[in-house]
């Protein structure tokens, strides 16, 4: 289900938000990948054994193009909540995540900033 107004809303802490920032939608190259891993072992008889690890979380990557002011706002938000769990609303989904970008980097372009947020957590 799509939200009526699609924005990228980030709040922190996730349980009782004290900080909130509203960003424009990320660019269309956002990425989602599950945190799954598998280790394959092959025995001398040719039988393959697999060992899997599931964490129930995913990694999300969002690329933003922000005005300089909004980029400064995001930087202030990150500095204040770097160790807190975020609650993100975007595109009808709620993400309970931590910021995984380390370092948090802003690339200053002509009149705007390019920022990439890498988040890790759950999506519902």
């Amino acid at each position, binding site marked *: 289900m799509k939200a009526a*107004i699609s*924005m990228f*809303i980030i*709040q922190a802490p996730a349980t*009782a*938000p*004290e*900080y*909130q*920032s*509203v*960003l*424009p939608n990320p660019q269309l190259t956002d990425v989602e990948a599950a*945190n799954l891993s598998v280790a394959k072992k092959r025995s001398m008889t040719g039988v393959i054994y697999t060992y899997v*690890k*599931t*964490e*129930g*979380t995913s990694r999300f990557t969002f690329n933003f193009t*922000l*005005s*300089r*002011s*909004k980029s*400064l*706002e995001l*930087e*202030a*938000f*990150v*500095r*204040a909540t*770097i*160790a*807190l*769990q975020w609650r993100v609303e975007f595109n009808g989904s709620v993400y309970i995540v*931590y910021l*995984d970008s*380390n*370092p*948090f*980097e*802003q*690339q*200053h*372009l*002509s009149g705007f900033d390019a920022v990439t947020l890498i988040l*890790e*957590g759950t999506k519902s």
Partner: protein
Amino acid sequence: MAFRVYQYGIEVLLTDATTGGTIYEPVIDDELAFDEDVSAPSIFNVSIEDELGFDDTLDGYDEVLDRTVTDVIQFIQNTDVHATVRNLVVADELGFIETLRRQIDVEIDDPIAFLDETFRIFTLSQELGLTQSVSPSITRPLRQFLSFVQGVARQVISSRAITNSLALRQAVLVLHLTNGMLCQYVPQGDLPAEPTLTPSDFTLFYPAVAPTTTLILPNPEVGNRTSYLPNRISRKSRGGTKQVFRDPAWPTLTTLTMDIGSLTTTQRGNLQDFLILTLGQTVGLLDYEGRAWTGIIGNPDAEFTTLSDHGCGTHATTIVFDGELVS
């Protein structure tokens, strides 16, 4: 040698008394050793009594005609400490081994009563060990009672600081949909106000306070980067739960990476001299937005690329600045 004994009596009277003063006695040793044996080897021993024995052995040889065997061991041991000076060591030990064993007995009554009390101590160590064993060969009925009462009573009244705090937080965040909210600085929460950005010349100066050397350079090219690297602990548990912690007192490091591609030959030389002068020293930086930083140039071995030798020349380099925002 007498074969018939109608009355056999042994009396042992001992009096032992030790009286100490009330001031200071390093050692008070009062030992009373008893070793009393009564043996009745004859046939008709109607009554054998042996009272008062610390190491007491009473053997009735005849298994048939010893109608009554009474072996009473009575202990009254008191160690009373009334002194008011110092009693460093008070030892009151009462060892008890009692064995009453016969091959054929109509009744065996073997009670052991024990009462051990200790008063007025700083360090309480009270041990009471008791082993009771009744091993009859032929008996009816068999009753074996072992009563045991040991109590340690201690009353402690201590008042310590009790803190019981319950912090409740409630937050209401309202999303105001206004024009320009997606590009303006409109944070919600306890965040600093928007910094004032004023276009400025890109300037390096040394020392950071009361500078004596100032170097004005062309502004960096489009694409320079600001990296915010917070010190934080971020790890995952074995179950995959992510745990993040950061102390606000921990320092933060901001790295400015700036590509400068239009240095003249003179500016190049000045910058190279500045890098040598300030190697490992804290310098000041005024960026192209008018914000002041203090920090260290992280790449004193910066490479300078000559793009053109015509006129004043054109040279390019990259400066990495690790510092903190001052204003």
